[in-house]
């Protein structure tokens, strides 16, 4: 039986939660909160109770985006590539031989690009609610978070945003809000440029990263098995968006899966933790060995 308790360690200058620091394989979780960009102040705490069943089954490492992107000179927060490079640097420093990456939101796009660069290390990628990676050009505006309260980092403003991107408010408890409020007081968020040129630079970098991903998907393909996990009621990215991304990735990657969790929004691992565990664990089980013909 694997040690279930996740304890903080310092890896490459960032906080990583691990249950077995000596493990050579395992699942690495990366939340997709970008200081100054995300509608709530995320970090490793957003996974909530979703991590426990994984930690009871095998090696688990949780890269805390708040710590990972907030440490250093802040360059990691400025562009998608900056965040991607930082995540990959920490991933390599974990000492794993092979791992499966489960990445949420913005980190999903980063993880797909990481897999293109580090297929030696990354055995598979699960992208959770990865609307950022979907084609969205020339679409009508998404109004889910059009008129947030100010300041966005205030507890009540974060609660508003979390409710807006969820199917149900039930998972938004005091523990989550306390953690989000604490994250808002971190240097990463206090220093984060939110408006103007900095935001345009971030958006531009996402567009260029998406173009690289689509080019790779069309030509060589993402070189490792990929699963997309989507909530049926994600206000930020529709099921149609998820399926479109699936079709793009499936063109050249044989082991591509699309998994839809019912009655969940943009945080399906919080709203449907059991189903999320089943989907990810089955994917890791099923792609962990040769899946040849009958």
């Amino acid at each position, binding site marked *: 039986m694997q040690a279930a308790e996740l304890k903080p360690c310092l890896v490459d200058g960032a906080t990583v939660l691990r249950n077995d620091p000596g493990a050579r394989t395992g699942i690495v979780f990366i939340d997709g909160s970008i200081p100054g960009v995300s509608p709530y102040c995320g970090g490793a705490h957003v996974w909530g109770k979703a991590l426990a069943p994984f930690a009871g089954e095998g090696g688990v490492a949780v890269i805390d985006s708040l710590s990972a992107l907030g440490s250093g000179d802040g360059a990691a927060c400025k562009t998608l590539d900056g965040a991607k490079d930082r995540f990959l640097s920490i991933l390599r420093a974990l000492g794993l031989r092979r791992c499966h990456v489960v990445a949420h939101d913005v980190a999903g796009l980063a993880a797909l690009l990481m897999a293109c660069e580090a297929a030696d290390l990354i055995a598979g990628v699960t992208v959770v609610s990865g609307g950022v990676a979907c084609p969205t050009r020339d679409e009508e505006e998404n109004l889910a978070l059009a008129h947030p309260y100010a300041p966005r980092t205030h507890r009540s403003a974060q609660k508003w945003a979390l409710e807006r991107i969820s199917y149900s408010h039930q998972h938004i408890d005091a523990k989550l809000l306390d953690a989000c409020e604490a994250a808002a007081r971190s240097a990463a968020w206090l220093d984060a440029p939110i408006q103007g040129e900095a935001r345009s630079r971030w958006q531009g970098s996402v567009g260029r990263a998406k173009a690289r991903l689509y080019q790779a998907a069309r030509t060589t393909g993402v070189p490792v098995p990929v699963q997309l996990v989507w909530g*049926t009621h994600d206000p930020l990215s529709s*099921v149609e968006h998820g*399926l479109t991304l*699936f079709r793009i990735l*499936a063109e050249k*990657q*044989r*082991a*591509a*899966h*699309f*998994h*839809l*969790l*019912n*009655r969940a929004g943009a945080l399906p691992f919080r709203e*449907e933790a*059991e*189903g999320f*565990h*089943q*989907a990810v*664990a*089955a*994917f890791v*089980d*099923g*792609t962990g*060995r*040769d*899946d040849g*013909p*009958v």
Partner: protein
Amino acid sequence: MGGVPTRYFEAGEGDAIVFIYGGNFGSPDSATSARVWDENLASLSRRFRVIAFDKLGQGETGNPLRDEDYTMDAVVGHAAGFIRALQLPPVHLVGHSRGGYAATRLTLDNHELVRSLSIVNSGTLAPGVGTNEVVHAGPPHPRGSREAVRWVYENFHFRPELVTDQWLDLVMATLALPKYQESIRKMTVEGLGERLFLPLLSRQKRETLAWLEEGRLQRPTQVIWGFNDRTALLDRGIRLFQLIARHDRSAQLHVVNESGHFPHREHPARFNALIGRFASLHAAFAR
């Protein structure tokens, strides 16, 4: 089973998973049997009690005893009777294609027999326009020949090379059984297919979909769909999922790339992982 000799395969211990395959008796160019689950049983039997049986009139199970039982209704009744006869606790049902319809209808009629339900590429059950008859129209080989059978199964698959000689041997052996030839004669020459089987299935499908719409399924359900199935397009799988998900919080849809109509044959490791994890999740739910 009710006087009909019924063949089944069983292995392993633990929560029971019962598999129901597709097709129907009397098809001249295809004859799926319980052996279609070989790869799945071998793997899942390490953790579960797995059972695959030949449906009424298919494989080596006997034919319906009366002409009026050449129906899907009788197939469902036979399957439910089989589960009862084995005195199984509520089972995890896995139904593929026509077997997906049978498994769903069995659940709707006999909730006490079922713990969870997995529906796999079931155009028979899913709403929307079926394309099976289009894809398989006019085999370019003599009916019932090995070449025609190969052509039919190849059209079901994303990777036609999976239609091996070993698989064709199994199908041809079933087709050659006198009782199977009798069912072909009943369904085609005597017209029971057009006169009885299809009209009744059509009527009961309408009823079954209405029951799903009303929320009568009431068992945890996952829909698994091969992305490249030309005979049952993904859009129909999504519509089926949406129908079920309206009433089932835990409903899931899983789409498998580079798979035609038989994801359990084309990607057995991943399919088995999905079934095993789903059964484990809902074993705890039901206890």
